[in-house]
C-alpha cells in the first residue's frame, strides 16, 4: 500500500545517479543522498538488476493476467482468482527487499521498508487469502490493479536506475502515477478489510480467548479495526511526503531542461 513511498532514499539515490551532468544545479539532491554510502558492489548490482527485472516481469504477468481474464469473462468481477498465485508469489517475494536493506546493498531504512512490505503481505495473506468471502469483492480488484501498476513502474525505475539509464518517462511516471494509484489502493484495501470484518467476528478467525495456560488473548476483529484506523494518520503523511519528493525530483529536471 504505501509502496509508493518505499525506497524514497533509493529514489533519491537513483536520481543522483541519473543526473551526473547537472554540475551547475543546486546540490539539493546530493545533500539528500549523503553519508557517502558507497553503492552496492558489482556483484550486488548485478543481483539487484536481476531481482528488479524479475519483479517487473512478475507484475507484468499479473497485469496481463488481469486483462486476459477480463476479456475472457467480459466482466470485472472475480478477477482475483485468475492472478491469485502470481500475486501471492511476487508480493511475498518482496520480503527480500527487507534483506537488501539489512545487508546494505540498498540504502533504505530496514524499519520503513519492513513496515511497507509487511503491510502488503498482511493484506495478501492475512486478509484476502484467509477470508475467502472477500475474494470475490470488487475492492480486491481495486487494490490489486493499483499495486500492479505501481510495482511495474517502481521495479522498472530501480532497474533503469541501477543501469544508470533512467528514462525521464519512468521517473515522471513513478512520481506522478501515485497521485491517483495511492488513494485508489488505499480505498481498495480499506474496503476489503471492512468486508472481512463480519466473517472474522463470526468465526473468531486468528483469535485467542481467555482462559488459557499463557494468560493471553487476541481479538483479530478488533485488530483489523485498529489497522483501519491507523490508515488515518499514516496515509496523509506518506502521501504528502511523496508529493514533496515529486516537487523536488521533477522540478530539478525542469531546471536542467530549461537550460
Amino acid at each position, binding site marked *: 500500500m504505501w509502496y509508493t513511498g518505499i525506497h524514497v532514499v533509493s529514489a533519491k539515490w537513483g536520481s543522483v545517479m541519473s543526473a551526473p551532468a547537472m554540475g551547475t544545479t543546486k546540490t539539493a539532491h546530493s545533500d539528500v543522498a549523503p553519508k557517502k554510502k558507497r553503492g552496492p558492489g558489482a556483484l550486488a548490482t548485478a543481483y539487484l538488476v536481476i531481482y528488479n527485472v524479475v519483479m517487473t516481469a512478475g507484475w507484468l504477468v499479473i497485469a496481463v493476467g488481469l486483462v486476459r481474464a477480463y476479456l475472457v469473462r467480459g466482466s470485472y468481477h472475480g478477477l482475483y482468482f485468475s492472478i491469485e498465485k502470481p500475486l501471492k508469489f511476487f508480493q511475498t517475494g518482496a520480503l527480500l527487499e527487507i534483506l537488501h536493506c539489512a545487508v546494505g546493498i540498498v540504502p533504505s531504512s530496514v524499519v520503513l521498508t519492513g513496515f511497507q512490505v509487511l503491510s502488503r503481505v498482511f493484506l495478501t495473506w492475512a486478509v484476502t487469502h484467509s477470508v475467502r468471502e472477500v475474494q470475490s469483492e470488487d475492492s480486491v480488484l481495486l487494490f490489486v490493479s493499483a499495486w500492479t501498476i505501481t510495482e511495474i513502474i517502481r521495479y522498472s525505475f530501480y532497474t533503469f536506475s541501477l543501469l544508470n539509464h533512467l528514462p525521464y518517462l519512468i521517473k515522471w511516471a513513478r512520481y506522478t502515477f501515485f497521485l491517483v494509484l495511492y488513494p485508489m489502493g488505499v480505498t481498495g484495501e480499506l474496503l476489503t478489510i471492512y468486508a472481512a470484518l463480519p466473517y472474522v467476528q463470526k468465526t473468531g478467525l486468528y483469535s485467542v480467548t*481467555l482462559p488459557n495456560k*499463557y*494468560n*493471553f*488473548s487476541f481479538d483479530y476483529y478488533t485488530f483489523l479495526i485498529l489497522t483501519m484506523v491507523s490508515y488515518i494518520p499514516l496515509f496523509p503523511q506518506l502521501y504528502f511526503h511523496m508529493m514533496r519528493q515529486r516537487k523536488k525530483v521533477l522540478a530539478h529536471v525542469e531546471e536542467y531542461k530549461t537550460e
Partner: protein
Amino acid sequence: MSRTTFFEVEVLDGRTRQQLCFLDKVEPHATIGEIKSLFHKSYQQLYPARQDLKLDPKGKSLRDDDVLQNLPVGTTATIYFKDLGPQVGWTMVFLAEYLGPLFIYLLFYFRAPYIYSHQDVFTSSPYSVVTLACACHTCHYIKRLIEAIFVHRFSHGTMPLRTIVRNCVYYWAFSAWLAFYINHPLYTPPSYGDMQVNYALAIFVLCELGNFSIHVALNNLKAEGGPKCRRFPHPTKNPFTWLFFFVSCPNYTYEVGAWASFSVMTQCLPVALFTFLAFIQMTIWAKGKHKTYSREFKDYPQLRMPIIPLLL
C-alpha cells in the same frame, strides 16, 4: 597593565543562517554555558537546556563547560543554534515514567470499575501468585523511584519533551496490558504451581538486589572519579558485582533476569513479550556502552561481553 582581548560572538540559526543574537565584549574565558545564559536573556523561551550550540551546523554540539578561548575560533566567533524543544529534568522524567506503571497496575489489581465486567469490580483473585505479582511489580517500581531520586547522577540535565511522552505511553500502555491479564478473573495460575512461583520469585529478588548493587557501584564510580577521571567499573566485595567479570552492563543483565523471572512466575505471555522487547533495547544500549568502554580503555578486560556472559 594587561588588556584582555574581548571576543565577539554571533549566534546564527543553524538552518536559516539568520543572525539571532550578537554578543560583544565577551570574556575570553567565558564558557558555552555562560553564553547560553546570555542568549537566554534575549530569548525568554529558550532557556539554556533547550539550546544546542555548534561551531559547524553539521558538527558536534558544544559542551557547556567548553571555554571560548580554547575553541578554534577567531576573536569573532560564529556559533550555530538549534532549538532542542521543551526539556524536562531527569528526575521529573523518571517520576513520570515510573509512577504511571505503579498506579496503573494497582488499578487493575484492585479491579477498578470499567476494566473487567460489572460483577468483578473490587473483587480479588483467589490465587496467591496474583498478590505476589502485584507486590513484585510495585516493589520494582518503588525501587526504581528511590534510585532515580537518591542514587543516579545524570550527565545530561534534561530530556526532550517528545521523548518522555513517547516513553511514558510505551511504559504505561504495556503495564496496563500485562496487569490486565495477571489480574483478570479468568487468570490461570502457573502450570507447575507453587514450585514454579517460588523459584521464579527467588530469582526475581536476587536480580533486583543485583540491579540495585550495580547502580550503587556505578554511582560510586562517578562520585570518586569526578568529571575528568574516567574509569570503568570493577567487581567489588559485593558478590552481586562479580557479574562485572563477565559483562559490561550487569545492571541490564539483572533487569532482563528480573523480568524473565516475573514472566515465569506469572506464566503470562504479555509479560514475556515485554521482557523480550526490553531485552532487545537493553542489548542495543549495552553494546553501545561496551564499545565506548573498549575504545576508551586500552586495558579493558577481554572476557567481558556486553550483556550476556560469554554470549552477547
